[in-house]
């Protein structure tokens, strides 16, 4: 078999790149690749104080709300209490309420009788109560 010259090692041009690039491509690529990083850094440096202030404000508002809630006792009725209370009926008669208040108010018998007449009680009942 005839020995041939190794085509890959005998042709020097094969190791060279047969491609071209647009004129000034590498220069413009390097310039463009360097610029965005500088831009990114500048933007961050500018935004940094504002970001810090915003973060501090958020922390202060959160902490303030938290402590305010802790310091003030809960005034709202819990759901459980609401359910219990919503089923309750006021059973105290109006005259009983009035009677319990008389001690503090120091009402005269006339006032009491007037009120009882106003509530629609009969004369017998009023008499029994006064007695």
């Amino acid at each position, binding site marked *: 078999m005839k020995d041939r010259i190794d085509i*890959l090692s005998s042709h020097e041009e094969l190791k060279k*790149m*047969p*491609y071209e690039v647009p004129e000034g491509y*590498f220069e413009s690529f*390097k310039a463009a*690749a360097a610029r965005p990083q500088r831009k990114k*850094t500048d933007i961050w440096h500018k935004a940094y104080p504002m970001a810090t202030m915003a973060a501090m404000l958020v922390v202060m508002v959160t902490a303030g709300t938290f402590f305010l809630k802790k310091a003030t006792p809960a005034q709202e009725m819990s759901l459980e209490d609401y359910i219990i209370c919503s089923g309750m009926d006021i059973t105290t008669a109006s005259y009983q309420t009035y009677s319990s208040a008389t001690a503090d108010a120091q009402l005269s018998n006339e006032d009491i009788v007037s009120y009882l007449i106003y509530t629609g009680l009969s004369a017998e009942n009023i008499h029994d109560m006064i007695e």
Partner: protein
Amino acid sequence: MTDREIIELYKEGSCEEAINQIVSQYTERLYWHIRRFLCNHEDTNDLLQDVFIKIWAALPSFRGDAQLFTWIYRIATNEVLNYLRKQRFKALVSFQDATEILERRIDEDAYFNGNALQRELHKAIQRLPEKQRIVFTLRYFDELKYEQISQITETSVGALKASYHHAYNKIKEDLEKLF
């Protein structure tokens, strides 16, 4: 500036300057490395930008176990492989042959200024399996040592030698049929 000096610069906190040095020193080498696989200027340009973004993002995790040069080449090679896999998938979906697309790109490339033998060499490279293609280009064109290629591809030197031998013979056969 050497790779070591670039890393020192980065560690000292001059990140921007270190990146600019990497861009300045590696743009052309990486461009040609990528272009050999993509066979087209526009796609090479896009991928080169992606590679630098990856390098910039990964630089804080560079521990210095490997040389900066092999680390950068590894990122670029992985990006190339990802791109080629995506292209192969696209070709598969559109019932086309990915190798044929790459060969056609060489024929249609407005920036190709080589002779017929160079054209056939680059077409023959596209017909190689992925691993052989990488080993062949890194060894034949960039003349890297097997140890360096081993760090880039994370493959043993023995396996690389075998891959290069197969690739070399295949390309030689292809070219000898034509010339």
